[in-house]
């Protein structure tokens, strides 16, 4: 079956611009996670959705970052006024429910802020 997909695979933008990154989870998975992986580091948790609601957004670095999941399926990570330090690979994962279920990761979106 189809795995987690993310679009675009690469995004290049200029400092100060607004970007949206999309995640399509595995069909039927109610839990969705966003992580950020900077160069040479492990992924860092950003936000966790259970259904339509953000159950844990403690990893969002500041108020320029926002994520939505309006229908409990597709999620969009939104970054306002991008900065060069936002350059990273943004990973999305989904699991059947929250709790003790394996997270399946997408291939990521590589964001480059010039």
């Amino acid at each position: 079956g189809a795995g987690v997909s993310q679009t675009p695979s690469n995004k290049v933008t200029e400092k100060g611009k607004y970007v949206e990154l999309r995640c399509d989870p595995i069909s039927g998975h109610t839990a969705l996670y966003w992580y950020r992986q900077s160069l040479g580091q492990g992924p860092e948790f950003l936000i966790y959705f259970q259904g339509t609601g953000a159950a844990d957004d403690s990893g969002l670095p500041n108020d320029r970052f926002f994520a939505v999941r309006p229908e409990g399926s597709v999620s969009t990570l939104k970054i306002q006024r991008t900065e060069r330090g936002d350059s990273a690979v943004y990973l999305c994962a989904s699991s059947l429910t929250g709790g003790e279920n394996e997270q399946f990761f997408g291939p990521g979106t590589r964001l480059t802020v010039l």
Partner: protein
Amino acid sequence: AQSVTQLDSHVSVSEGTPVLLRCNYSSSYSPSLFWYVQHPNKGLQLLLKYTSAATLVKGINGFEAEFKKSETSFHLTKPSAHMSDAAEYFCVVSATGGYNKLIFGAGTRLAVHP
């Protein structure tokens, strides 16, 4: 707070020789621990998980890991390396004891030489 430390950023082995990737964890309660693998241009894949059952955990592709509470370690091993094992490996602890928030180590890059 939970954390993991991967003791080697790079490990190089010859094909057919054993693999040892070292990981120490810190957790205020009985942790859930995982190893993930990341091949170039591919999504993160779960190798194995420990969730307080057997301390020796067997995973995919011949990998296994042993949970040692007294040493706070969760080292990943494989008896005989294959060229296809070359990848980045991440030791991961769950922040809540479940799957909700994964905390990744910095990663160990495994190189396998003929």
